[in-house]
């Protein structure tokens, strides 16, 4: 198996993370925000896989399973909240939620 | 013990009044009036049994309070405290009479605040442990702020917040100075102490003493008030309800002067002497600037507020002259100004109750329909510009005569304040009571006549026989 240098994996992870982060900030639709959040989580997962492979330990894979579980739970709660939001504000625009300001 | 009874008794009566107002309407004001009269008589009676307190500082109670820091609960009286406490009681009764009809809602809480504030003020005048003094200093401020903020006029929140922040910032400086001095005491003698008599024995090096004195001075200069830290006063006085203004002008300002005498001058004599020329200049600026600003005002209460600034300038000039005659003049000015300012603010309140306006442009020709009120207004305006025969003249005259040998130029400038006070006094009286009558107002009621009459009577008595106030201070002041 060709050895993939750790730096390449981490670069990939960073790029994916930034794409996800930019997506969270710049998308107004909450579902797209959730998708971008997923991308960020996956990016972190890639980083963990790469690190596990570099250190030749299985902990990286275990962390990735944890992240997947976390993502699933978070998406479930998030989608529930956004359904409530859609019922209340009649839109999925995240900028509608701005009453907690001073 | 007697003083403790008075202070905490007033607080308890305040709570009682608050409680009783809920049960029976209008009972709070009677309870307040009754408690003030009762405690005043109690105070007078106890003084007769303790005549030596007229001469030098007589300790009444001293018990440990917060022993870790050697903070004690110590109260004492001397002639200065006694004079000011008697003034406080008298003006407290006037305050209750003035608010009799004026305060209609939340009466119970109002009278609680009034009684609590008076309790705090009496505590300020007799505390000799500096931490206790600071404690009472804060206690007297909070109810006052509440009175302005809740029962004041249209801009009351702004005025209350401004008043509160101003005094709190200056008190902070005083607190730093108190703690620093206490630690210096620990450094010099080995034990922490906040007790006044211990501090009198301290030998503080001049550079440190100057800073400590400055900390105290700024707090008392804000209270006095002295230019340039005077600007809380016009707003606070204008927006406060009548009793608030009476208490503020009559008594709270005197706590500043009291602090200057008791702490600044006696604790740091050398530093005060060095600072005296600056203080004198500030005093003269207060006198002249206050007079000029008073002349420019169209609001009755604001004009009287600026006149207070002008009069207290005389007190500061007199105190920093380090002269017995000037010191006596300062005491008389304090009492006289307390009475005459209280009178002018009561009058402003009476006029406001009738026409619901403080603006001089809305007034005119009131003598036509209210000659008795006009007569009293003239008498009190005369007190404001130092008409001989009333107490203010004695105070101003003795202050200037005493200060002249030390600061001739400053006294000559201060004498121009006499012209300035005549100008604004006449403008105040003539704009409101003379000229063609714009509207008819009711003349003085019996309650208002009692208020004005008693104040004028006291002003006349002190003006014609000031030895009542001065006989104890002749030998006592070792300035």
């Amino acid at each position, binding site marked *: 198996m060709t050895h993939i240098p750790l730096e390449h994996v981490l670069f990939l992870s960073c790029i994916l993370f930034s794409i996800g982060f930019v997506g969270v900030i710049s998308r107004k639709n909450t579902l797209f925000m959730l998708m971008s959040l997923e991308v960020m989580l996956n990016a972190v997962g890639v980083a963990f896989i790469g690190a596990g492979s570099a250190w030749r330990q299985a902990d990286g894979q275990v962390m990735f399973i944890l992240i997947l579980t976390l993502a699933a739970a978070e998406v479930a709660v998030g989608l529930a909240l956004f359904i409530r939001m859609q019922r209340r504000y009649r839109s999925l625009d995240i900028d509608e939620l*701005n009453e907690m300001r001073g | 013990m007697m003083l403790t009874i008075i202070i905490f008794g007033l607080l308890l009566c305040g709570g009682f009044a608050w409680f009783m107002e809920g049960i029976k309407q209008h009972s709070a004001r009677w309870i307040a009036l009754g408690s003030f009269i009762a405690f005043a008589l109690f105070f007078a009676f106890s003084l007769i049994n303790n005549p030596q307190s007229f001469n030098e500082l007589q300790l009444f109670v001293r018990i440990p309070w917060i022993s870790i820091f050697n903070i004690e609960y110590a109260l004492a009286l001397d002639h200065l405290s006694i004079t000011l406490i008697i003034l406080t009681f008298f003006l407290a009764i006037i305050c209750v009479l003035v608010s009799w009809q004026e305060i209609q809602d939340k009466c119970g809480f109002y009278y609680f605040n009034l009684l609590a504030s008076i309790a705090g003020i009496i505590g300020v005048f007799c505390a000799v442990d500096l931490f206790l003094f600071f404690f009472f200093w804060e206690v007297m401020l909070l109810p006052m702020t509440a009175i302005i903020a809740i029962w004041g006029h249209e801009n009351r929140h702004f005025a209350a917040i401004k008043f509160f922040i101003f005094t709190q910032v200056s008190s902070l400086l005083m607190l730093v100075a108190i703690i620093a001095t206490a630690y210096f005491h620990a450094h010099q003698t080995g034990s922490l102490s906040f007790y006044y008599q211990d501090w009198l024995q301290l030998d503080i090096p001049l550079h440190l003493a100057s800073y400590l004195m400055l900390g105290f001075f700024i707090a008392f200069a804000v209270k006095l008030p002295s230019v340039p830290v005077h*600007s809380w006063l016009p707003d606070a006085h204008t927006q406060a309800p009548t009793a608030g203004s009476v208490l503020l002008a009559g008594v709270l300002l005197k706590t500043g002067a009291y602090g200057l005498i008791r702490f600044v001058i006696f604790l740091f004599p050398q530093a005060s002497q060095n600072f005296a020329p600056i203080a004198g200049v500030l005093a003269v600026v207060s006198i002249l600037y206050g007079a000029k600003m008073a002349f420019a005002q169209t609001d009755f209460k604001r004009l009287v507020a600026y006149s207070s600034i002008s009069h207290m300038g005389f007190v500061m000039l007199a105190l920093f002259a380090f002269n017995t005659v000037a010191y006596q003049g300062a005491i008389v000015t304090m009492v006289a100004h307390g009475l005459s300012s209280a009178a002018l603010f009561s009058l402003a309140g009476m006029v406001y109750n009738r026409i619901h306006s403080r603006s001089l442009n809305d007034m005119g020709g009131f003598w036509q329909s209210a000659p008795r009120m006009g007569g009293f207004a003239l008498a009190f305006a005369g007190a404001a510009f130092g008409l001989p025969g009333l107490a203010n003249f004695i105070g101003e005259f003795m202050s200037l005569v005493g200060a002249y040998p030390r600061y001739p130029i400053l006294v000559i400038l201060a004498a121009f304040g006499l012209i300035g006070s005549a100008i604004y006094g006449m403008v105040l009286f003539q704009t409101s009571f003379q000229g063609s009558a714009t509207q008819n107002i009711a003349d003085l009621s019996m309650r208002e006549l009692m208020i004005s009459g008693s104040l004028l009577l006291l002003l006349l008595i002190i003006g014609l026989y000031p030895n009542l106030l*001065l006989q104890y201070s002749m030998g006592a002041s070792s300035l």
Partner: protein
Amino acid sequence: MSTTMLAALPFYPLVSFLLLITLAKRLSWQQASLLSVGAMALSALSSGILVYQLSQSDTHVLTVHLWSWFSLKNSTGIADVNFAFYLDALSSVMICVVTGIGFLIHLFAAVYMKNDENFSRFMAYMNLFIVAMLILVLADNLVLLYLGWEGVGLCSFLLIGFWYQEKDNVLAARKAFIVTRIGDTAMAIGLFMLFKSLGQLNIVDVTQAAQASWQVGSNDAYWIALLLLGGAVGKSAQLPLQTWLPDAMAGPTPVSALIHAATMVTAGVYLIARMHGVFLLAPEVMQYVAWVGASTLLLAGVAALVQTDIKRVLAYSTMSQIGYMMLALGAGAWSAGVFHLMTHAFFKALLFLTAGSVILALHHQQNLFKMGGLLKKLPVESTLFIIGLICLMALPGTSGFFSKEAIIAQLWSSPTAGQSLWWCAILGALLTSIYSCRLFFLAFLGGQRFDTKLHIEKSKLLRISLIALAILSLLGGLISLDLQAVFTAIPTPVSTVNEPHWLHTVAIITPFIGIAFSWFYFARYRVNDGAEIKASQSKLSQFLRSGLGFDTLYQWLLIKPYCFIAQFNRRDIVDQVIMLNAWYVRLWHDTLSTSQNGSLRWYAAAFGLAIVCLVGVVTL
């Protein structure tokens, strides 16, 4: 006995004042006038008895101590300032003038103001004034004198502004009070200096101490005398504080007679005479006094030549005559000055009260150019007025003649006055006779220029006071005032210059020259030929009529700048500077609160930024 009488002297009018004020509307006219005039009668009687007893006593000085007012600690001990009265020859002259003339004027006023709805208040103020004036002249220390001084100022304010519904009266009263206050402040500063230098404020002690410790011409004496002069100048309406007196004529005529002719304006003269011990130690200041007197004399005389209001002519005339008194004091002719004070009180009160009758008869008409021909219509008033005027002009035999000649005689050879001032006095006498004749011609001779029916006052009481004053004016010159005891205790330097022999002659014939001049110059005023007479409206006349432009000068120099500064800084620049703090805090608040906009994406972006910064800080 006499000490109690002395102590009680100011208290009769004081009790009357208190009763009148408290019972104001409930008293009828009879009761109120009985109370006030009765109190004055008691005072006048007591004064007379006291003066008689004084002349019989050995020491010619009477003192009484009422109570201790306050004490001042000086360098050697304690100086007491007491409510105590001191009666000597000088103060006895003053109390007789004040109570005697005061009584006559009160009597007149009781009838004159009968129909005024605030009659009790008026008489109350008049009585209070007498109380203050008596305290002023009887005070044995300068602080009590200051109390009387301010008291008369206050009463003058109240009486000038008695008809307070008119804006003009209110402003005139304010002007009077503030201008005199300026003088009072100068006097107060003088008192401070006096106490610092001598440690005393009791008049007798001050005079003794001054004689003992100050050299002639010393700095202390100079400044203190100058400041006392400042006080006197304010109260006596002399240059430069004279602008209030003409406007003070807005008050009722009895007020003008009592306060602004006979008593209050002479308080300044009394002060200088009483403090002559201090003034003698400052010869330059005595020269100033003389020059102030002379210049006011001429200024007021010139201004009186063009006035259109009868009371204003008399006001400027008063100013001018007090100038004579000041000139006398400045020249060291103390007794002459006080004598002229007394005679002036007689004839000026007479003139004012008679003018009041005339004004009343013409239904409150005061404009000279709307009078005329009253000699036939009001013969009694005309005769009384003539008597007053001939005393004013100092025609031989009248009281005015004796007093004015006494002054003029001492001017030429006085070391602090001199020849130029003698000529000023003569010129002043000339001006006096010219404006007096003009006044008489315009008001009483010539054709009738009024068209209202004359209101003839039926009451005889009015005439009593006037006739009494007329008798005093004519015969008062025979009263010999023995002020030797007061003024020769400290000798006044007298020069030994040889006087020219024509001095007296010139002085005596001057008024006649003036009368002759007026006879021809003002001929059109006195002949009844139907020609229309109007006041001159030329620029010069208007300038002179306004009192030589002093009002305008003070307006531009003092009043406008003060009002401008006051208005400009109405919002208190110090407050604005302190509120900058509040503005600054609010600025931070507004700035930072934009970052709390509730937008989730914003917060997320802030997280990211913070993490980047942190990581950067950690790695670098």
